[in-house]
């Protein structure tokens, strides 16, 4: 029963990834023969295991290093912002629970239902030089208001917009799982709202917090649509960089090297996610035992 999805993933993801990695090492046979016959500026294998020439070329290039820096910066800033905003919404919903709270949650979840390309285009128009913010600022007498479209700040805004719903959903449900009795007990013992949050709610939502942080990190690291549409032409995030290498420059080998780097960054985060989950499962098992 488990086999069908695993076979689909093994065939259409596993095999291409393995052969893609072999291709980055300079192995041009088998599945890679088509791509190797049309790619430009390739480094063929010179040892039995291959060559690191493509990695050396990509990893030492200025464009790559600038993209890597931007990618790490955007990812860190976006994850912090998504987490903070998501937590504010979730905490507000948990602590107040009225009609405004439901409205706030519904608003925060809205982007989940809209294609990222629509969100990115809307953000691009909204924060443009003739967009809503500059127009309103001008009406209020500030004629030199900055625009965010085609800037790295705009990319961060777009990432927060697209990734907020997942954070809110996961954190809201994590906070909802904390029993009311615990919160009331803390209040009876004289805890102020801030103490309830810091001492009761946050410690009990560590797994949802890890899920939010890791999934947002992985989503932002590998993102394409937001940085492609909203961001500047250069420096771009690695997702755009590898698409450019593949489509515009016809350098599939360099493109896949970049993909491997992004995957390596994402797996570091993925391992943290799996480990925290495993630890939590063990802890839960030992409590119930």
């Amino acid at each position, binding site marked *: 029963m488990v086999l069908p999805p695993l076979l689909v993933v093994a065939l259409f993801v596993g095999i291409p990834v393995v052969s893609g990695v072999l291709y980055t090492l300079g192995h041009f046979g088998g599945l890679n023969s088509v791509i190797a016959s049309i790619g430009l500026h390739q480094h063929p294998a010179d040892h039995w295991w291959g060559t690191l020439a493509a990695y050396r070329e990509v990893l030492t290039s200025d464009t790559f290093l600038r993209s890597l820096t931007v990618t790490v910066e955007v990812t860190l800033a976006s994850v912090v912002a998504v987490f903070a905003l998501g937590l504010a919404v979730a905490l507000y919903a948990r602590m107040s629970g009225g009609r405004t709270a439901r409205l706030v949650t519904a608003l925060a979840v809205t982007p989940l239902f809209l294609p*990222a390309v629509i969100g990115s285009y809307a953000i691009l128009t909204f924060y443009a030089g003739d967009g809503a913010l500059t127009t309103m600022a001008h009406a209020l007498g500030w004629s030199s208001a900055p625009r965010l479209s085609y800037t790295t700040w705009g990319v961060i805004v777009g990432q927060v917009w697209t990734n907020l719903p997942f954070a809110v959903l996961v954190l809201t449900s994590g906070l909802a799982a904390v029993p009311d009795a615990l919160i009331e007990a803390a209040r009876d013992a004289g805890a102020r709202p801030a103490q309830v949050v810091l001492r009761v709610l946050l410690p009990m939502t560590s797994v949802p917090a890890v899920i939010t942080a890791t999934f947002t990190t992985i989503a932002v690291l590998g993102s394409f649509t937001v940085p492609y549409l909203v961001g500047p032409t250069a420096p771009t995030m690695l997702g755009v960089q590898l698409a450019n290498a593949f489509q515009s420059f016809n350098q599939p080998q360099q493109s896949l090297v970049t993909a491997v780097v992004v995957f390596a960054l994402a797996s570091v985060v993925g391992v943290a996610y799996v480990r925290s989950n495993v630890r939590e499962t063990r802890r839960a098992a030992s409590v119930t035992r």
Partner: protein
Amino acid sequence: MTAAAVVRRAGGAVLAALLALFILGPLLWLLPHAFADTWRYPDLLPQGWTLRWWTAVADNPDLVAAVRWSFVFAPVVTLLSAVICLPAAYAFARRDFPGRRFFLVALFSVNAFPKIGLYAAMASLFYTLNLMTTFWGVVVVQLLGTVVFMTWLPAAAFAAVPRSLEEAARDAGAGPLTVFWRVTLPLARPGILVALIMSFLAAFDEAQGTLLVGAPTYTTMPTAMYSMVTNYPEGVAAVFSLLLSVPSVLLMLGVRRHIMGGHLAEGFQLR
């Protein structure tokens, strides 16, 4: 009302207003663009209004075809994904077999590899299998984005069904299939519904892989949107964005309760 309650209520109103501006502002700003004839900065409203962007979209056969293909691919992909993944989800929830957690993580690795890099790597395989520029090629490429949702979320939903209920039904003489159809499935339904919605949205939203595999024969709304942003007048892109938002908003109004129910978060806790 106490002072603290007033502060909290005001804080809530500010949070709601800022969030509305941040989330809805960009979408609402597209609305006048879809009807604007000429609109010079820094005027707050357009100088003239027109419907010509709407007729431009309606008269463009490529754009109409993109709308149609979007509504063909997303349901086909969602159904196929359900057929492939739901039995696996049940097995992950109910059987303990060696490598169970490893396989769950293996499915997740699809999401950890940058999508665009994955498609670049997949291109060779698609050429070899003659899937390039084919209907099923597009289906496969969109299907990959749904696998994690369609396995993890239903697995958590199945796992949450109390075994005692199933055993009680069995004691009352129900066969395994009856137990599944009458007890397990109804109780797991909300989680499965969330998985179906997430998969539909993932397929509906997929643009990069569809562009690589399907273009120029199979263009969906998001892939058409890419070329529109760069090649068409602003008004046309605004109209198309609004059209693309309609199914999403309808879907959202219909299923918000289920999405908010915590099934999403539950599904992402590896057990």
